[in-house]
C-alpha cells in the first residue's frame, strides 16, 4: 500500500513539474469540445440553390418563393438555360439546382401534375441527401396545398425535438476526448520510463508489476475524471446540451470506460519501444477505428453485418450510447445496464491481457 502511494506521489509530482502538460490536460479538451461542437454538425441550413425558371409564370415564381421562404435554402443563382445550371453546380455556387420547364403553370391549371427537375451535388453525399430531403418536403407542401389529404401525419420527435445534431454530437465528442487523453497519456507515461531507463531501475526494486501498473493507472484515471468534469460545463452551459439523466450515473459509467482506455494505453505501451511509436499506434490502430466503428458519426445499423459484430468489441460504442442516453433520454442503469456490463467486461479483459503482456515484457 505504501509502495503504491510512493509511486502515486512521484507521478503527480512529475505531472506538476511539466509546464506544458497541464494546459494540454485541462484546457485543450474544453477547447477541442468547443471546436468540435461547432464543426461536427450534420444540420443542413441555407443550402445554395440555383434556379432556372423557363416557365416565368406566377405559378413558377410562387414555387421558387416557397424554397426561398424555408430556412433550408437560399437562392444563389438564376439562369435562363440549363447549361448555366451545370456551371453553377460545378463551381460550387449551388449545391441544388431547380429547373421549372416551360408549360409548368399550364399543366397545373389544366389539373395535371406539374413536373420540375431537381439536380443535387452528390459529391458531398451527406449534405446532398439532406438537401434532397428538404426539397422534397417543400415540394410536398406545395402539392398538398388546397387538396384534402387522405391521411394526416403528425410526427413527434422525442428527446431532441429540433433534431439538433449538436445535442447528438457533443456528448459523443466528450467521450472521444476522454478516450484519447487517458489512452495516450497512459501509454506515453510508461513508454517514457522505458526510454529513459527508469523502468529498468524500477524493476530491480522490490516493487511488483502490479504496483507499477496501478501506480500508472490511478493518476491517469484521476486525470481523466478531472477532464470529464472540466469539459462537462462546456457541454452544459456553452452548448446547452440538456442533461436529462443524473450526473452521478454519468460519472459512474465513466469508470468502466476509463478502465478500457487505461488498459488499452497499457497494452500500447507493451507494444511500443518509443514514444513516437506509442503515439502512432494510439492514433491509427486504437483511436481511428474505434471512432469509425463507434456510431460517433456513422450509424452502426447501416454497417455490413460483419462490421456490426466488430463494433461489439469497441468500448467507445457503448460509452457513446450511454452518454447520449443519459444526456438526451434521461435514462439510467435500468436501461443501460447491458452497456455497463459490456464495458466492465471489456475493461477487465483488456487489463488482464495488458498485465500479462507487461509482465512478459519485463520478464
Amino acid at each position: 500500500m505504501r509502495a503504491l502511494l510512493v509511486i502515486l506521489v512521484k507521478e503527480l509530482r512529475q505531472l506538476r513539474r511539466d509546464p506544458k502538460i497541464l494546459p494540454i490536460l485541462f484546457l485543450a479538451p474544453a477547447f477541442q469540445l468547443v471546436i468540435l461542437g461547432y464543426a461536427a454538425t450534420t444540420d443542413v441550413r441555407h443550402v445554395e440553390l440555383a434556379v432556372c425558371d423557363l416557365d416565368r409564370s406566377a405559378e413558377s415564381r410562387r414555387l421558387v418563393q416557397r424554397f426561398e421562404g424555408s430556412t433550408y435554402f437560399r437562392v444563389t443563382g438564376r439562369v435562363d438555360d440549363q447549361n448555366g445550371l451545370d456551371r453553377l453546380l460545378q463551381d460550387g455556387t449551388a449545391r441544388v439546382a431547380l429547373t421549372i420547364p416551360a408549360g409548368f403553370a399550364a399543366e397545373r391549371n389544366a389539373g395535371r401534375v406539374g413536373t420540375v427537375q431537381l439536380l443535387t451535388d452528390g459529391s458531398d453525399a451527406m449534405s446532398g441527401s439532406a438537401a434532397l430531403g428538404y426539397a422534397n418536403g417543400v415540394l410536398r407542401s406545395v402539392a398538398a396545398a388546397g387538396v384534402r389529404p387522405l391521411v394526416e401525419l403528425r410526427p413527434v420527435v422525442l428527446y431532441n425535438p429540433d433534431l439538433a445534431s449538436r445535442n447528438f454530437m457533443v456528448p459523443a465528442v466528450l467521450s472521444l476526448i476522454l478516450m484519447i487523453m487517458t489512452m495516450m497519456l497512459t501509454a506515453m507515461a510508461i513508454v517514457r520510463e522505458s526510454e529513459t531507463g527508469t523502468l529498468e531501475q524500477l524493476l530491480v526494486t522490490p516493487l511488483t508489476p502490479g504496483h507499477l501498473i496501478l501506480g500508472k493507472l490511478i493518476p491517469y484515471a484521476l486525470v481523466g475524471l478531472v477532464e470529464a468534469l472540466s469539459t462537462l460545463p462546456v457541454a452544459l452551459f456553452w452548448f446547452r446540451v440538456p442533461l436529462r439523466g443524473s450526473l452521478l450515473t454519468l460519472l459512474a459509467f465513466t469508470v468502466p470506460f476509463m478502465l478500457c482506455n487505461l488498459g488499452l494505453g497499457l497494452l500500447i505501451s507493451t507494444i511500443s519501444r518509443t514514444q513516437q511509436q506509442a503515439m502512432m499506434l494510439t492514433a491509427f490502430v486504437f483511436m481511428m477505428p474505434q471512432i469509425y466503428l463507434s456510431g460517433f458519426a456513422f450509424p452502426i445499423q447501416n454497417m455490413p453485418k460483419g462490421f456490426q459484430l466488430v463494433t461489439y468489441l469497441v468500448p467507445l460504442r457503448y460509452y457513446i450510447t450511454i452518454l447520449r442516453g443519459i444526456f438526451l433520454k434521461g435514462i439510467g442503469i435500468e436501461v443501460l445496464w447491458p452497456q455497463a456490463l459490456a464495458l466492465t467486461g471489456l475493461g477487465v479483459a483488456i487489463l488482464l491481457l495488458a498485465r500479462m503482456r507487461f509482465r512478459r515484457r519485463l520478464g
Partner: protein
Amino acid sequence: MSQPAVRAVELSRWFGAFRAVDRVSFEVGTGEVFGFLGSNGAGKTTTIRMLCGLLAPSSGSGEVLGFDVATQPHEIKRRIGYMSQRFSLYADLTVDENLAFWGGAYGLGGARLRERVAWAIEVGALASRRGTVVRELPVGFRQRLALGCALLHEPPIVFLDEPTGGVDPEARRRFWDLIDTLAAAGTTVFVTTHYMDEAERCGRVALMHAGKLLALDTVPRLKARFESGTVVEIACPRPAAAMRHLEGLPAVHEVALFGDLLHAILAAPGAASGLVAALEAAGHAPATVTAIDPSLEDVFIHVISRPSTGREQA
C-alpha cells in the same frame, strides 16, 4: 563467510543465435570489489542483468546472496543495489524527490528514510543541490546521486554497470574513492568497466570477451602470467609500420599500439636483444626496446587474442 556473495555456474544467455553470455562461471566473495572488464558487447551488462533478476538465464545457474536468480528474483531485488550505465533517475524531479522516491520503492519511510537520505546527501556531496532538478545537475553529481539511490536500503551487495560512463576523470576518481569506502564497510561491489585504470582498483578482475570469461584473477597475478622481461615497450619513428613488421617475427607473440609506442609480448625474455637489430635492419632506426611491467591492458590484449586458451579458471 563460506557462502559467496555471487556464484555463477555455466551461466549463459543467448538472443536467437547470438550468444551474449556463453557458459560463464565465477564466484564473488563477500566484501570483495569484483571487476568485470571487457569492451562493449562483451556480455558484461547481460551478465549483470541476469544476476539482478532482470533477465532469465538461457541455461546454467546463478546465485546472489544464496538466492537463485531464475526462481527467487524477488528475494534478490530486495537485497541488492543496482546502478545502470544510464544513471536511471527522474530528470524532472529534484535530488530530494528522487531520493524520497527510490527510498520509498525499497520500502523505507519515516525516520529511517530521512536518515538514509541524509547519508546519501553527505557521501554524494549533494548538500548544495538538494532542490535542484536532476536535469540541471552536472553528470558527476548525477552519478553520485544514482549511487546514493541504489544504496539507500543498505544492500550487502551493489551491482554497478559501467557507472562512470561520460564522467570526467576527477569525478571518476572521486567515485572510486566512494567505492573503496563502501567496500571497507563490508559491502560487496560488483562493477563492470571498460576502463583499465578502474579495473586496476578492483580486488579481482574477470576479463570478458565475446560472451566468454577469458581470465579471472587479482590484478598482480594476472600480470604475473608473463615471465619478467617478456613485455617490452618499443619506441621507433613509424610505429604502425614497425608493428606490421614485428607481427611477422617468430620471437614476438603479440604487438599492440599504445599511443605512439608499441607494446610487444615476446616468446622468451631473451628475445628483446634481437629486436632492436631486426627493427633497424628493416629501416625503423632509431629503435629502443625497454622491458616493462605489463599493464592490465597488455594482459587483456594478450588474453583476447588467444581465445583458444580461454576459460582458464572456473
